[in-house]
């Protein structure tokens, strides 16, 4: 079980480093990119250490096993990054569920749910996020997709078309 154990330990080492960095300073602009850099740097460092001074007896040294570990590591990193994006912004569905739970046995009426969400909270905040990460740009009062935004939107348009289903949202 050495190879899989090494892969899991490596991932947790990267996660620990990410946690320590976040306690010092949380990047606001593009945290996903910063996460990718941190995790990738840990992997590269592990490869160098395994070749020069293997600190763990079962550190893989050959390219084939290193590549297996890389596929595992990058898969776990991507899974973590997509989870992280769910932490950054509130999901309206989860907010509805939490508020219904807090309401207790009396339940929650539709009016109260509608009062929870304003245009500011739902749309303006999100469009500002899209502008911040460069997927949308604003010219005077008009919002348009950037080239990167168009590509991203197209991926989802094509996928929904393949599924033959509605817009979503």
């Amino acid at each position, binding site marked *: 079980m050495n190879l*899989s154990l090494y892969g899991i330990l490596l991932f947790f080492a990267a996660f620990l480093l990410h946690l320590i960095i976040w306690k010092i300073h949380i990047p606001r602009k593009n945290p996903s990119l910063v996460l990718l850099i941190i995790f990738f740097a840990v992997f590269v460092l592990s490869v160098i250490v395994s070749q020069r001074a293997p600190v763990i007896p079962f550190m893989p040294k050959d390219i084939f096993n290193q590549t297996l570990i890389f596929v595992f590591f990058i898969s776990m990193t991507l899974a973590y990054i997509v989870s992280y994006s769910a932490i950054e912004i509130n999901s*309206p569905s989860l907010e509805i569920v939490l508020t219904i739970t807090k309401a207790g046995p009396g339940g929650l009426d539709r009016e109260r749910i509608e009062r929870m969400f304003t245009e500011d909270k739902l749309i303006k905040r999100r469009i500002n996020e899209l502008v911040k990460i460069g997927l949308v740009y604003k010219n005077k009062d008009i919002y348009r997709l950037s080239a990167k935004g168009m590509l991203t939107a197209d991926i989802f348009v094509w996928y929904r078309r393949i599924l033959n289903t509605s817009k979503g949202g």
Partner: protein
Amino acid sequence: MINRYIEIIIPIVGLAVNVIVQILSFRYFVRQSLMRSIIFGFISGLCGVILLAAGIPAGIKSGFWDVMILHVLSYIALGYCYFHFINLGETALRIRIMRELREAPQGLSLDELLARYGTKEIIDRRISRLQRNGQIIAKGNKYYLRSPTMLIMAKSILALRYILLGTFYAD
């Protein structure tokens, strides 16, 4: 030599099987039930990973169970990413906003965007989805929690948010 390279891409092949089965089952077999198609796709991909990993000759592996665990965990992580991608297309507000902008090459003002995709539609869709998935139930004009699945998910996200960002609240 070819078998060694196949071994490296086993989780990716599993993901490809997942995607194909999920799309086909959604379109033709499970009556447009997205969750069922996701489950079928995931299980099919997992079977593919296990069969491929088990079929690799033992002589080139460092250890059967060792490599099997690695491939299965890699596949589960990739499968989770795919699930997240599907979920984005299905529920994400930002993706819907981008799709509305995509359909309007001349651009949209905030008012025009809200006319196409406003607060009422957002709330209606979410309540409807939560009811359809059995997470909440309506009795009279009130809503009640029916299943704890989304609640567990919400609390896990809150906990992780607190650990990473030091707050329960997103900006």
